[in-house]
């Protein structure tokens, strides 16, 4: 025990020094640039180095697999079976054509019609368009994270060492750094907005509020090592408008809000989230709803309309999909935000899953687990496109307008445009869709007449 004493104080001293150094580095290289919105370019260099390492790792795995003469498992994003894009009518007609020489113009029932439903059903069992959107995208090359590796048995010793080094760097260096930054960012946001809240309303308060928000979002961006490329910034949303974007994770909010000023919309939560929300609304008018109010669509529409009509208030940020999708597709936009009559500013966000998949699978991971996974990835890399503003044309209704905006976002982001509801993640599909199929088929066996007598 006698010998441990000087050793003890040595350890304590070292700890103290390293923490001081860490915080000074933090301040100089990260927090100060965040406040002023400049960047040293460290993250870009980091990204390039990582890419080179990933390519090397993938080659090693391929070589390992070739040596053992095994085929490598490669994920295919575009589906695993061949599906023909023909309609119910066309398919059934074709089946009937091959079966009989009868005239095809008269609608009637054939025993072979069942082949259509049978094959379609089995096709969806093997590969469907919807369920795969609710789990993380599979990567083609390995990014040194065990969570994305499907070919474990081909990893050589060198690769394992590299992976181990990666784990060390990510968990022992990057993670504490990021947690410190996140802590700093969030506490600055809460204290900053509360302080600004005490000022009298006016230009000064608005200015300070905007900048406090911006500064804290920028620190959070660095807390996630998010490397974001913004395109077409001249189309950024203006006051009195609604900004809509595709939703992949809660991080979307941080990414957009660190490049512009927005009023947030959402439900008031309890816990830390609630504290942050209540502080934010003191500095500038965000639109928070109580849980009970969320169900009342008219109330929601009324409050949003009031907000956009006030030109002094910031543009609203909304995610019309209503839930997180895995960033390979855009699912149905809920029409609520498109009925208000304000200018819509669409934004497309596309993440590069190579450095860390940002998709939040809320049925698998809670918020805290999710954030930890984010902070132990290499980086979050994404591109943001600001699309030109759109307004509802007189001949289209809210649903058509919503679909038009959705297609524009899907096209820009390179995502698949789906009509399916993101709510299918948790709920069953509505019976109306099955009834639609039944109606279509009925036309094929009795035509459009209500009553036809047959012998």
């Amino acid at each position, binding site marked *: 025990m006698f010998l441990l004493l000087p050793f003890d104080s040595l350890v304590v001293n070292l700890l103290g020094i390293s923490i001081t150094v860490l915080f000074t580095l933090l301040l100089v290289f990260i927090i100060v640039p965040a406040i002023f919105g400049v960047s040293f370019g460290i993250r870009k260099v980091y990204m390039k180095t990582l890419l080179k390492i990933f390519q090397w790792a993938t080659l090693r795995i391929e070589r390992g697999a070739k040596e053992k003469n095994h085929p490598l498992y490669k994920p295919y994003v575009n589906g695993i079976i061949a599906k023909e894009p023909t309609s119910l009518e066309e398919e059934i007609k074709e089946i009937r054509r*091959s079966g*009989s020489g009868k005239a095809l113009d008269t609608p009637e029932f054939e*025993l072979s019609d069942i082949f*259509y439903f049978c094959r379609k059903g089995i096709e*969806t069992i*093997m590969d469907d368009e*919807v369920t795969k959107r609710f789990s993380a995208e599979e990567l083609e090359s390995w990014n040194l994270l065990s969570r994305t590796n499907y070919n474990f048995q081909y990893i050589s010793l060198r690769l394992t060492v590299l992976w181990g080094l990666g784990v060390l760097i990510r968990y022992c260096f990057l993670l504490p750094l990021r947690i410190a930054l996140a802590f700093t960012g969030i506490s600055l946001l809460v204290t900053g907005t509360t302080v600004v809240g005490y000022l009298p309303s006016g230009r000064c308060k608005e200015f300070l509020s905007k900048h406090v928000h911006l500064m804290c979002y920028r620190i959070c961006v660095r807390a996630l090592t998010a490397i974001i490329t913004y395109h077409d910034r001249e189309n950024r949303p203006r006051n009195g408008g609604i900004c809509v974007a595709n939703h992949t994770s809660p991080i979307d909010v941080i990414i957009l809000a660190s490049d512009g000023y927005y009023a947030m919309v959402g439900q008031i939560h309890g816990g830390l989230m609630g504290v942050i929300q209540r502080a934010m609304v003191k500095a500038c008018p965000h639109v928070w709803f109580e849980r009970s109010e969320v169900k009342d669509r008219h109330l929601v529409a009324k409050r949003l309309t009031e907000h956009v009509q006030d030109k002094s208030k910031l543009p609203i940020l909304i995610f019309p999909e209503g839930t997180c999708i895995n960033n390979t597709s855009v699912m149905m936009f809920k029409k609520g935000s498109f009925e208000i009559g304000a200018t819509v500013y669409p934004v497309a966000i596309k993440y590069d899953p190579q450095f860390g998949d940002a998709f939040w699978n809320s049925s698998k991971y809670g918020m805290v687990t999710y954030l930890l996974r984010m902070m132990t990835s290499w980086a979050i890399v994404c591109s943001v496109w600001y699309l030109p503003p759109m307004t509802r044309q007189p001949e289209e209704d809210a649903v058509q307008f919503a679909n038009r905006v959705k297609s524009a976002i899907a096209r820009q982001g390179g995502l698949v445009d789906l009509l399916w509801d993101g709510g299918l993640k948790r709920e069953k599909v509505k019976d109306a869709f*099955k009834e639609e199929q039944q109606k279509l088929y*009925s036309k094929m*066996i009795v035509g459009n007449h209500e009553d036809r007598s047959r012998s």
Partner: protein
Amino acid sequence: SVSHSQITRLYSRFTSLDKGENGTLSREDFQRIPELAINPLGDRIINAFFPEGEDQVNFRGFMRTLAHFRPIEDNEKSKDQNGPEPLNSRSNKLHFAFRLYDLDKDDKISREELLQVLRMMVGVNISDEQLGSIADRTIQEADQDGDSAISFAEFVKVLEKVDVEQKMSIRFLH
């Protein structure tokens, strides 16, 4: 036969459907697929995966049912006739479709069974009388031994010209 990568892919699909993570699929696991839930014959197709009286299907059973939909390769047609008939033969594909109609598994499609399946396919859009006459006409045209039901042999005869190989086959992209 099915390639190694195709089996891996189907196994990956099986595990992603298996929400309970116990190595078997239940009927609920299938019904969670939206495009299958809106298929008018979705429940009949799901039923085809479950052997008599069972509520769970393992990967082997899953593959066995899907094997009916493998394309018939040309070289397989001229293979040895003495071995057991492959699951994806024309006859077995037809039998799969027959079983979708044959609700009580008595190897006959009765008028009642045909009516029930027709009702599933058309929903509320056609009256009972009309559906009844459609069923009657279908049985009349197919029935050869006069028992007012369609046996498997009669079923095969009616569909002898249909390109079953193509319409009941699913191709892998890779």
